[in-house]
């Protein structure tokens, strides 16, 4: 239960920011009624720290929490409209299996302004239910407004787990929500499964040198962030429908403390490209110099693919950072990944091993990259790659 101490000076700020109208003035002090969802939006508005939400220490009644939730991140499309970031579909696909095993509903959380047109798309990827929160204050992502909305939704509807994308937005939002609600959060998961009714979260640590399985046995909801391109997307089911739960959460603009002055979108940014490419030709230290990478670019062009690079190659300045594949770069899972002159440090492998087909070309027969390759070619990429590009060109002509 939320408490208001006699420190209250009657400023009325909390009454204004409460999304649920749960706070009201009685005489010169604020009071709380039963509409309070413990979302915490009022706490930051109080300048004298008179409001407090005592935490439940010890175990909570975890059986009261049901439903697998996916937070849907929206991206600015080229036409200025919002679109669902593809990771949303991947998380719904992963969540579908977990929900089925637990016999719970799969729910998408859609927060924005004029976004209800996306609901059928979410249903086609398996969402049984969509929690829809729309208003003009939620047009763009903001830490303060989105965390208030998420805390409010979770406190009210009590899901058993919430999955977030491990992106700039997801990694900004999820820890705030988990901290506020005193529950567990596991970062950058590469595997999710159910163990004794709990969410078993698998993640790499120590630069990918070890894997850890993490549980959150006594708190709910269980929360995790998952990288793009790790979970396989199910094919969408045309005509699927979801139950829509529209939740009205008004946002007072005074709760938004960090304001965007300007957005600088880098047109030549490579992340999207290697993120979404079907074919990636990637190079490592073995490509030696920029000329070596030029050979890879020519091959990538021929295969309609993008060029990736290992950390070693990035460190040598052979490609800009957005092209980096690996744990400290981007995780990719293209149909075809051709690794040229890459030894296969574990930090690189965790970023590409879920690719459908891996072809590795390396002079050293003992290179670790061969351990994850379906096809291993022992030889010098400098000699093989240009000849392969040539052969592909000739094939096209013929």
């Amino acid at each position: 239960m939320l408490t208001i101490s006699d420190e209250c000076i009657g400023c009325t700020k909390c009454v204004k920011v409460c999304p649920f109208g749960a706070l009201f003035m009685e005489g010169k002090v604020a009071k709380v009624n039963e509409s309070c969802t413990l979302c915490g939006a009022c706490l930051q508005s109080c300048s004298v720290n008179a409001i407090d939400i005592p935490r439940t220490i010890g175990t909570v009644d975890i059986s009261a929490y049901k439903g697998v939730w996916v937070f849907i991140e929206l991206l600015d499309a080229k036409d200025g409209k919002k679109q669902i970031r593809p990771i949303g579909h991947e998380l719904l696909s992963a969540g579908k299996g977990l929900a089925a095993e637990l016999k719970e509903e799969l729910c998408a959380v859609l927060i924005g302004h004029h976004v209800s047109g996306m609901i059928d798309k979410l249903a086609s990827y398996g969402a049984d239910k969509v929690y829809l929160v729309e208003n003009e204050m939620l047009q763009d992502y903001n830490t303060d407004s989105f965390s208030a909305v998420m805390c409010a939704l979770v406190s009210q509807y009590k899901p058993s787990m919430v999955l977030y994308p491990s992106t700039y937005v997801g990694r900004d939002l999820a820890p705030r929500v988990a901290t506020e609600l005193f529950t567990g959060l596991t970062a950058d998961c590469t595997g999710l499964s159910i163990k004794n009714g709990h969410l078993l979260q698998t993640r790499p640590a120590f630069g990918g040198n070890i894997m850890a399985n993490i549980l959150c046995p006594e708190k709910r909801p269980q929360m995790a962030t998952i990288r793009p391109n790790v979970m396989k997307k199910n094919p969408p089911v045309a005509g699927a429908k979801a139950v829509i739960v529209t939740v009205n959460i008004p946002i007072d603009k005074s709760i938004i403390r960090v304001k965007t002055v300007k957005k600088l979108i880098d047109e030549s940014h490579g992340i999207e490209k290697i993120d979404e490419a079907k074919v990636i030709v990637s190079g490592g230290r073995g490509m030696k110099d920029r000329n070596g990478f030029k050979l890879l670019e020519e091959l990538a062009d021929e295969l309609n693919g993008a060029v990736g690079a290992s950390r070693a190659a990035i460190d040598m300045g052979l490609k800009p950072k957005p092209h980096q594949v690996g744990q400290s770069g981007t995780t990719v899972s293209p149909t075809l990944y051709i690794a040229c002159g890459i030894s296969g440090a574990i930090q690189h492998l965790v970023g590409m091993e879920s690719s459908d087909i891996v072809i590795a070309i390396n002079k050293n027969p003992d290179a670790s990259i061969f351990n994850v390759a379906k096809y291993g070619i022992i030889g010098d990429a400098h000699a093989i790659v240009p000849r392969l590009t040539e052969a592909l060109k000739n094939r096209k002509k013929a």
Partner: protein
Amino acid sequence: MEIISLIKQVPDSTRVKVDPVTGTLIRAGVPSILNPYDHFALEQAIKLKKEHNAKLTVLSMGPPQAEEVVRLALSLGADRGILLSDRAFAGSDTWATSYTLAQAIRKIGKFDLILAGMMAIDGDTAQTGPGVAQQLRLPQITFCNELKVEGKKLIAKKLIEGGHEIVECIMPVLCTMIMPHEYHPSYPSFMSIYKAQVEKPAELWSLKNIDAEIKLLGLEGSPTRVDKIYPPVSKEKGTMYNGSPSEMVEILIQILKEEEVI
């Protein structure tokens, strides 16, 4: 202006090796370093301190040997250094760590700006910075690469998908920093190490120095549990080919055809 810089001592994960027989981490001989993201954030804090004549306090949490990184920060120019170390903090996940750090920051008292690295290279979670911000009800700006202070306002350049964003916020605020790609951390001279040791001893804080609910600390205050730790599973080795470049090209064309890429 008062700045608090959060730092962590980590094993240099780029030098961690795995025992090929047992599959366990070989930690022996792996040097401990100041987490590079925190190192960069600390350098930004020192820069702001010089520009604005601010007071800089560094705060770390860890085993007693983590005093090394607090001393390093003091020799680099921090005014005050605190290490939170107590057996009661052992086994903390990011929730309990954020709580403990936040309680220590409440004890430190006044501050305008808290800086931290975006993540530590041993856990790679990026959760502790936002966790501390939420515990303290502070606004946060994550993944920053440039900071500027104008009066009461902090202006930051931060990463967003596909580019950058310039944001501003009235302080106090907590910012987490990414680091530039070719970042070479600065280290203090022998003289400044010596001077710091004499003039600015690191303060060691235990549970007694902060007001904390004991049930929210360490293992007990951590919602997450490690179920199992194991080496990454290696896949079965695929087919290997060896021969002249032109033979290899023929095989590659064959593979691309079979896999229906061409």
